[in-house]
């Protein structure tokens, strides 16, 4: 069994209105050190082992559905877990 963590964020050159609003709020709380805020999505997938390559599988899922690569970047971490 695998635990897969997928992170999806807006691409760097795409304006993030939510992130900007949160940055403004942080500044108003006097956290002036904050340079930039990017808001994204975090997805945790539990994936059964099969004869298919897990890395290729997750990449495929990201490209096809989990991220819209026109405006979003994605990265993921795969962790193998032992079922108790």
């Amino acid at each position, binding site marked *: 069994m695998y635990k897969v963590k997928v992170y999806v964020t807006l691409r760097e050159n*795409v304006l993030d*209105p939510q992130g900007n609003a949160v940055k403004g709020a942080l500044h108003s709380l006097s956290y002036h050190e904050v340079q930039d805020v990017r808001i994204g*999505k975090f997805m945790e997938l539990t994936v059964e082992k099969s004869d298919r390559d897990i890395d290729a599988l997750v990449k495929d899922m990201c490209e096809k559905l989990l991220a819209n690569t026109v405006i979003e970047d994605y990265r993921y971490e795969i962790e193998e877990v032992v079922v108790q």
Partner: protein
Amino acid sequence: MKFAVIVFPGSNCDVDMYHAIADELREDVEYVWHDVESLDEFDAILLPGGFSYGDYLRSGAIARFSNVMKAIKKAADEGKPILGVCNGFQILLEAGLLPGAMRRNHTLTFICRPVKLRVENNETMFTSQYERGEIITIPIAHGEGNYYCDEHTLQQLIANNQIVFRYEGENPNGSLQNIAGIVNEKGNVLGMMPHPERAVHDLLGGADGLKMFQSIVTYWRDAHVVTT
């Protein structure tokens, strides 16, 4: 002429779309549930607004994997008119039938009010009844209508005259180049954020949307009805 109004779980402008065709345009129209395999019996396909699949993940992201999307791709390849409004536009983008993607409105608010549009291209099967440069008033109702595409795609859209509608005056959502509606390269798939089906009678506040549906019928009659 026979129109299909595709209904997804969460569509909510399907009834307005049906009303526009049946009662104002007075053409045949049917609701079509999202799991059908074939749309061969229809002459034009309408994807209505709403929140298909609750807008989960991204607007239109889940709907694009519906069974009916294969039939919609086939209809697109056959050159049939396909109109996606609001969530329908978002689905067409997610499905890759139109280029680009939607971001949250730059105001971060859901905006629901009439806006002014400029008809940039009246040489499409959807806009032939408008004048080029005509300013029309059509309502918008969306939280994610902030159109985006990369520079290369934008240049293609401009070069091929694929930008059909632009917001006139104030841009309500921050969309690139004030884009409100685009058509595919072939010219038979149109996506737009404003709702023409909500502007088909003076009682609704205006009838500027009716010409869009009349354009589709005119195109179809010219192509299919032989006059003697």
